[in-house]
């Protein structure tokens, strides 16, 4: 769809992550760096001198944030997931460090390119089921403003579970101090135009982990970039990983890899098998860097359209994992949640019971019904995520219509080259109709053409509403919509305006 006229909610979320008016300098923090941010280490200690003053300012900041939230809700002018926090951080620059210092049981951070919202939501579900009250930033509001919003609006709790944007981790650690646990999910290419290269991202992580003394890492062993960063940190690490079946391994062989060479010595990485981008079983040809042995290992993996299951070996036991969310990536998210919650003291058996009841969040995969058609919406924002979504759609039986909504707004990344990195050639499911929408609808349509979509099934539409109307009118009953980040909001508001009913979405 063409970009909607600017409205209040657009300016609130997604938050403009970077001033694009000028390119980033190589050594410049990607974004969010408050001009007055203290150096990493110094800032990790909550203010003590003038503490009374800063605390009363923090109280004022919390009050201001809640007033802003009430105003947003009262005027129905949009989502209140970031602006209140922005106000709080402005009123009291020490707002986050003051609130973090008050957490008697500390806090955990979840970061990485893909899976952080779901991993954090799964962990929160497990902790709530275990009767552990917590502060938790939801809806993917994972910059400093989103975290501050959670602290300002939610009831005080002894523990906080915070999702952090992968590029904002250094700033978050600078404000919040050392976490009890940090989950590193994975590193994939995502918005290279905005973040710069992947190496700069892991460099930021190393800085952040140096400021996290005492933290335990929960890290993906199958991702060489994550594993190397974790090993280098000298912090205790709980590695998680999977042992996939041979069909899963074969499916990942064509995908682009972000880790062709060893992060330690630069020699070629040799893979015994590779199943999702550069995730796999690897060993360096030149030095002794190799995939660490996972303490949490999922095997006997079974994937279907409606869920995923596996047997998970933990250091103390073996548990059976059964999820209502589909896809191999869901197994990874659940493993990370298991690692995190057991570190916080939840028994893995209790954790898998809670995970079995878990439903998806934030419309990243939600289902709506509209005039007799089921419309499933899955956020897709980078090649690895798109591959994974397509792989999940392929497990569905029957024909359907596929609608891609490709936007190139700042929060999506202005460079749409990434859709060429997704392995549509092998993974695109068969469908009755393929529709390209969004600010770069023509670019998406061209991608689909070269992926082999027959011309007569391929259309581009200026606007999502007319695309959906046309599909439903011609009798399509199963429609998958794959929007990028900013397109997700537009998809939801279009569906709301059309009167679609939510079938599955537990954001409430």
């Amino acid at each position, binding site marked *: 769809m063409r970009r909607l006229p600017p409205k209040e909610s657009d300016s609130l979320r997604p938050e403009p992550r970077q001033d694009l*008016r*000028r*390119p*980033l*300098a*190589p050594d410049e923090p990607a974004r969010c760096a408050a001009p007055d941010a203290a150096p990493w280490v110094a800032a990790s200690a909550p203010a003590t001198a003038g503490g009374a003053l800063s605390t009363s300012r923090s109280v004022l900041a919390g009050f201001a944030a809640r007033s802003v939230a009430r105003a947003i809700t009262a005027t129905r002018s949009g989502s209140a997931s970031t602006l209140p926090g922005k106000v709080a951080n402005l009123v009291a620059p020490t707002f986050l460090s003051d609130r973090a210092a008050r957490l008697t049981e500390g806090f955990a951070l979840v970061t990485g390119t893909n899976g952080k919202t779901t991993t954090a939501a799964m962990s929160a579900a497990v902790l709530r089921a275990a009767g552990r009250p917590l502060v938790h930033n939801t809806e993917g509001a994972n910059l400093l403003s989103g975290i501050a919003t959670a602290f300002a609006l939610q009831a005080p709790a002894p523990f906080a579970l915070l999702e952090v944007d992968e590029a904002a981790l250094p700033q978050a650690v600078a404000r919040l101090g050392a976490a009890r646990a940090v989950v590193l999910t994975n590193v994939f*290419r995502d918005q*290279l*135009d905005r973040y*710069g*290269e*992947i*190496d700069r991202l892991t460099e930021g992580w190393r800085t952040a982990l140096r400021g996290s003394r005492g933290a335990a890492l929960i890290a993906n062993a199958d991702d060489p970039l994550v594993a190397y960063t974790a090993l280098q940190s000298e912090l205790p690490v709980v590695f998680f990983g999977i042992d996939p079946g041979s069909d899963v391994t074969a499916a990942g062989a064509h995908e*682009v*890899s972000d880790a*062709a*060479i060893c992060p330690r010595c*630069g020699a*070629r990485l040799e893979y015994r098998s590779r199943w999702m981008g550069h995730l796999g079983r690897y060993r360096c040809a030149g030095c002794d860097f190799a995939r660490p042995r996972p303490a949490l290992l999922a095997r006997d993996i079974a994937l279907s359209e409606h869920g995923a299951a596996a047997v998970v070996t933990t250091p103390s036991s073996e548990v059976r994992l059964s999820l209502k969310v589909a896809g191999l990536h869901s197994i990874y998210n659940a493993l990370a949640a298991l690692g995190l919650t057991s570190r916080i003291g939840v028994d893995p058996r209790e954790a898998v019971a809670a995970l079995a009841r878990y439903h998806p969040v934030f419309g990243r995969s939600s289902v709506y019904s509209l005039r007799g058609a089921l419309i499933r919406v899955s956020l897709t924002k980078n090649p690895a995520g798109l591959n994974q979504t397509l792989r999940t759609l392929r497990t569905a039986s029957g024909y359907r219509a596929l609608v891609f909504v490709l936007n*190139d707004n700042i929060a999506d990344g*202005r*460079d*749409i*080259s*990434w*859709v*060429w*990195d997704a392995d549509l*050639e092998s993974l695109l499911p068969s469908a009755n109709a393929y529709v390209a929408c969004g*600010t*770069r*609808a*023509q*670019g998406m*349509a*061209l*991608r689909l*053409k*070269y992926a082999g979509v027959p*011309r007569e099934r*391929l259309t*581009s539409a200026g606007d999502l509403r007319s695309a959906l109307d046309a599909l439903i009118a011609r009798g399509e009953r199963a429609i998958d919509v794959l929007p990028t980040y900013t397109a997700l909001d537009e998809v939801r508001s279009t569906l709301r305006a059309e009167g679609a009913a939510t079938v599955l979405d537990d954001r409430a």
Partner: protein
Amino acid sequence: MEHDHPTLTAVHLYPTTMDTYGDRGNVTALTKRAQWRGVEIAWRDVELGQSAPAGCDLLFLGGGQDRVQRAVAEDLVTRHDWLAELAGGGTAMLAVCAGLQLLGTRYVDASGGVLPGVGLLDLETVAGNDRLIGNVVAEVVTGTGRHLLAGFENHGGKTYLGDTEPLGRVLAGHGNNGEDGTEGARSGTLLATYLHGPVLPRNAWLADHLLSLALTHAGLDPALLPALDDGLEAAAREEAIAVAERDRRRDRRRGRPRRLLERLRGRATL
């Protein structure tokens, strides 16, 4: 022995180490656009340290992240004679982004360290303070007329041409260095550009230009390439030009010098 289809031999240099920002889209575009005319391309992947075939009709070298640049530069220098022979013999070659930089004479990094290039193109690249990122439109003149080249650039190095022709003139965006209005470089059948990713699918004329050079090298008739229905390609390029123009207007509001995109667009072959 009779062949059903005319076949071009092609080399993809470093497909796993130099593969970023959607470079595989360029290989897909060349393969498909040849196939749609009944011409097959036999691709041979050549990785770091692997031996390459003595000759080929077509060669592609993609972009890479800084981390792999040194390893690739070292490997590439050992292939100097082979590459020079290909370029001199009329092999159609396309180098993108880091590929462009490494085919030059040298790359000077931020600390003043020098990475030697293979020297096929007389150009050098200096690490800049700001990355040059954004949508680009350039005007390229070939034997078949004026063309518009639209795409996206993202590079930390600034490239300055010596005795090498630019591929085109920048109408919107930064180009080689953001200063002299040049985009890319060319020398005979070797073309290099900073526009990465799906530069060939979106700029179908450039894909066909390379295919026609490759057919000539193979001793085949370039007339084997009849026109295709490129409606989607044209629409995608128009869209890319429109976003570049949007960015250019935004930059102009911030005081960047006015460029002549609209005026030149009227003259170029669309």
